[in-house]
Structures are given as C-alpha cells and as structure tokens.
C-alpha cells in the first residue's frame, strides 16, 4: 500500500469524523467566550441528531436530494431553541452553569428518546434514505495528487465546517460583536459600564452554541449513523468540548483540534486496515483526545486558560 493510497483513505475519513466536532466545538467557543460554560454540548448534539433524522424521514419525499441540508437547518433551529433553556437557567436564574449543562444533557436524551417512542412506537428510528453521501468535488478533484487526497470521496459538510470555522474566527476577532462577546466573557462589569448589554450578548452566544451544536449532531447522524437511537451520540459532544479547550478557546484552534481528534477517531476505526497500525491496540487512539486535553490543560503542551469570567453569572451591581 503506497503512501498515496493511505492518505486517500485517512484524510477523507478524518474529515468525515471531524465535521460534527468542528461545528460543535465552535458552538462551545461562542458560549464560553461570552462567559457561559456549556457542558450541555452533548445534549445539544443529541437534539440536533434527533431533529435531523426525524425531519429527514418525514420530509424526504418533499425535498428530494436537498433533504439532508434542509434537515440540517431544522436541527440548527431546534438546537438553538433548546439551548434557550440553558441560557435562561444560567444567565437569568444564575444557576450553576455546570449543573444546568448536566440537566441539558439528561433532558436531551430523555426528550428525544421519549419522542422517538411517541412518534415511531419503537426505540430507534428507521434508516434514512437521503443522507449525506460521498462525492468527488467537481473541478477540485481533478487537480493532480491534491485532488485525489483532499477532494475525492469526501463530504461537502466537511468543507462547510472549515469555512464556518473561518467565519467564526472573523466574527469573534474582527467584528464589533466579537469584541463585545470577548469583553463580556473576560470582564462583564467593565463591558456593562461601557454600555454593552451583557445579558443580551450572553443569550446570543448560548443560542449560537445551540444552533452550531444542533448542526454538529445533524451532520453526525446524517453522515455516520443514519438513524437515531440512544447510542447515536455517545461522547461526541464532550469530545467537541475537549477540542474547544485543546484549541484554547480559539475558533481556528478548535477546528485544528477537531480535525486532529477526528483523525484519532477515524484511525481507531480504519486502523486495522492500515499496514503500520494494525498492531497498535486502538485503546490508545480512542483515549488519545482526552489524555491530550488533560495534558494541554495542565500546561505540558502550552497552557490553555479559559476566558476569565467563564462560569460566573453576572449580577448587576455586585463587585
């Protein structure tokens, strides 16, 4: 097996696994940059996956080939709406943000499985017929070497994820909104003094995280599992959280980390078919993202520091 063959297997697979992580990690970045810890990302992905699959199954005959994309929009909207619960609890009611995130995770699994049984009268949905499928991207896949490695047998969603990461970087670091977002996350009192509506910015950020998490779940369900059951989303949300931290709360960093974690995940699945990896137990690959995140937090791989006001409810007038 030549290097070329290996790359043309590994890279598309990496990008397939990374796309949901990128979206969800970006969601986490928005939320935490505004000072709201969101460990409910897992639950938001569950809601996104559930919505996308149900929408897809219901409307496949209406939208035809466009179904997965429209389903993704539905997942985005419902994910955004669901995250309002977290926003109300942690911003308005000053709940412990970690606890509220745990409640989101429990609630998402409960609600989505309850509704699956309510709608379909069984524990899991049927397999969707119109999922995201592998494509050779026109024109780009004709480029010699690069075309075969990066643009053949791949998914459009992976490229959308990378583009959205770049947009997120632009929004957070180059626009007035981004500056406000970051200031609210670092020093809400100072931001408030300057006339920034802390509550409003935080609400927007949390809803954005819900929308992006919903998209992440929707992509995962429609390109990897193709149905929805209790085990559809099992830890991807927490892995996205890890990617966000490993990427040091920076959109492009989060994207890089998500790609790397996607690489580790895909190797743990396709590794047995690659010549130099078949003897490595895949426990190392499976555990690698989490171990690396712990090391990054500890400072062994460049210290990762959270936004200063992250996790602290803002109470007007208190010092």
């Amino acid at each position, binding site marked *: 097996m030549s290097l070329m063959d290996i790359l043309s297997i590994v890279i598309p697979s990496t990008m397939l696994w990374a796309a949901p992580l990128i979206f969800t990690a970006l969601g986490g970045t928005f939320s935490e940059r505004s000072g709201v*810890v969101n*460990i409910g990302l897992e639950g938001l992905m569950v809601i996104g996956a559930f919505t996308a699959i149900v929408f897809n199954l219901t409307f496949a005959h209406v939208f035809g080939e466009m179904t997965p994309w429209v389903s993704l929009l539905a997942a985005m909207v419902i994910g955004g709406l669901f995250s309002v*619960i977290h926003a*109300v*609890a942690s911003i308005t*009611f*000053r*709940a*412990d943000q*970690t*606890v*509220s995130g*745990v*409640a*989101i*995770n*429990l*609630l998402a*699994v*409960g*609600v989505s*499985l*309850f509704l699956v*049984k*309510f709608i379909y009268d069984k524990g899991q949905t049927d397999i969707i017929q119109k999922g995201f499928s592998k494509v050779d991207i026109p024109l780009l896949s004709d480029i010699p070497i690069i075309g075969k490695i990066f643009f053949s047998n791949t998914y459009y969603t992976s490229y959308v994820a990378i583009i959205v990461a770049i947009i997120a970087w632009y929004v957070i670091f180059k626009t007035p909104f981004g500056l406000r977002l970051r200031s609210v996350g670092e020093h809400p009192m100072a931001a408030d003094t300057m006339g920034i509506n802390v509550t409003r910015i935080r609400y927007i950020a949390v809803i954005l995280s819900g929308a992006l998490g919903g998209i992440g779940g929707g992509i995962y369900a429609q390109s990897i599992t193709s149905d929805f059951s*209790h*085990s559809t989303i*099992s*830890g991807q949300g*927490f*892995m996205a*959280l*890890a990617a966000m*931290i490993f990427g040091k709360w920076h959109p492009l960093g989060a994207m890089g980390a998500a790609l790397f974690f996607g690489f580790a995940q895909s190797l743990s699945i396709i590794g047995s078919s690659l010549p130099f990896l078949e003897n490595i*137990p895949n*426990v190392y690959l*499976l*555990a690698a*993202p*989490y*171990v690396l*995140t*712990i090391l990054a*937090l*500890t*400072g062994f791989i460049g210290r990762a520091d*959270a936004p200063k006001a992250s996790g602290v409810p803002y109470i007007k007038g208190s010092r």
Partner: protein
Amino acid sequence: MSSRMKNIIVPVLAVLLGIIVGTIIMLVTGYDAGAAFIALWDGAFGDIYYTGETIRQITPYILAGLAVGFAFKTGLFNIGVEGQLLVGWLAAVWVGVAFELPKVIHLPLAVLAAAVAGALWAFIPGLLKAKFRVHEVIVTIMMNYVALHVVNHVIRTVLSNKSDRTADIYASASLRSPFLEGLTDYSRLHWGIIVALICVIIMWFILEKTSRGYELKAVGFNQHASEYAGMNVKSNIILSMVISGAFAGLAGAMEGLGTFGYQSISGGFTGVGFDGIAVALLGGNTPIGIVLAAILFGSLKVGALNMPLEAGVPNELVDIIIALIVFFVAASYMIRIFIDRIGKKGAK
C-alpha cells in the same frame, strides 16, 4: 422564613414542579398520566420483588450521590463519578475472578480494591487541581472517557480472551445473598445496601465529627480564608477528591459484586454517575438528604420500567422528570425569590 426551612422547601418544590411538567408532557402527547403514575408506583413498590429491585437500584445511587456531594462540600464538582465507578467495578471484578479466598478475606478485599481504584482515578484531577489549578470539571469529564476505553480494553484483553464480558466472580467475593433474594421473591437485592448506609455514616462522621472534615468544609466555603487560617488547601482538595472517588469506586463494586457479578464492555456509561449529580444536588449535599434523594430517584428509575408495560408510556418520561428536577434545583434562585415574596406578603 428560616434558611433551614427554605433548604427543605426548595427541593420539594423542585420535585413537584418536575412531576407537574412531566404530567403536562404526558397530557400534550396524549398519554394517560394517571395510569402512568399508578404504573410507576406499582413498578417500584407494588410487589415485594419490585421493592427489592428498587432497593438494589438505590444502593449505587446513594454511593454516587455521596461521591458528588462530598466533593461539593469542598467546593469541587466531581463529574467523574461515572469513570471512577467503572474503574471501581473493574477492580472489584478483577479481584473477584483472580483468586479464590475465604469469604471473610475475599469480599472485603474486592470491595477495598474498588474503593482504592476509584480513589486513584479521582486522585489525578485532585492533584491537577491542587498543583496546576486545572479546573476539575473538564479533567473529570476527560477521565470518564479514558476510563471507559481503558476498562473496555482490559476486559477484552486481560480479563477475557477477546470476549465482551469477564468471567463470573467467585462466590467468595460476591455480595449476593440467598437470604435477601428469598425475602424479596428472587430480586437481585444484595448486601450492598448495608455498605452504602455505612458510607453514609462515614461521610457524616468525617464532615461533622473530625477536624479534617471541618477543614474540608472550610476550604469549600472560602479557600483564601482557610489558607490564612493555616490550613493546607492543596492537600484538602486532593483528599476530598480521593474520598469522593472512593465512594464512586464502591458504587462500582455494588454493580460488580452485587447486581451483576461480572463486567461487560460497553459503548457508553451506566448513567449512575450522572444521576449521582442529581441525587447530591437534590439532597443538598447532606448525608441524610442524599439518602432521601437516592430513594426517590431509585424508585423512579425502577418504577419507570413498568410504565411501558402497564400504561404504554415510554420509560424515558422519568428521565425527563429527573432532568427537570435537576434543572429546577439548579435554578432555585427563582424559587427562593418566589418564597421570599410570599413570606413578605404573609408578614404584612
């Protein structure tokens, strides 16, 4: 209204609100709410067999609740109970299958192994928090997944020959009891409930009757004041995590030595660790509160299994109610303000 009174009313209101919203969900989706709650009650207490199963489920909930609650007392949020539980389960089963010893030695050894394994797993986030000021929430979440994959790997390669479960433990390490099983119409009730209740007393004793416990609580209230008073904040943080992890490991031992008698590989978590957060939160992190909350959640979980059979309502409804209860306790700011308003009106 006294704050003590409020501490009791808030969780009670949260439970009521959770049940009310759960009822609304059933009404909206057209399920028979009355039949669902009757089925829930029957499924938890309607028969001596179900009661046995309920008590069996309460056992790990108490221990998981103690684990979360103990760390909370020192101001630490241990979301890693799930992972500590898995390594505790593994350690207990490992000792259980590795050798045959007289019961008086083997059983305590297996239980102890679980506590030590859980404690070691929690020692890492404790150490990182104390030495590097790394937030324990993230580290414990990551350690959960490391535990999941490592435990699966050990089961597959060390404790079995590429099989998906370990062998059954020797009877000498088992918590099973023919007496309790006979008493409850052959449910899986085992002696673990005694272990759990002993741990409740241990938590109460450490926190209320020892100077170490006083220090742990002081660090939870105010780290800087504790340091100024000459307490070693770092060692208290590590100790709190270690004790918390030991409780979590014991919860794993209950599953490994009592309920199942083996461990199988799994793609996800048991959920007991996350439910432990709900238990501790609702119980106000006090030993007696944790027992009461564990009884409530244990009954809900076991009773729920009867809901699809008897009332045709999906058992996930109970998961929704539990999540809502956590949510309402977390957002108790709202409930407290509400109580204050009512209290003021009454005073006029």
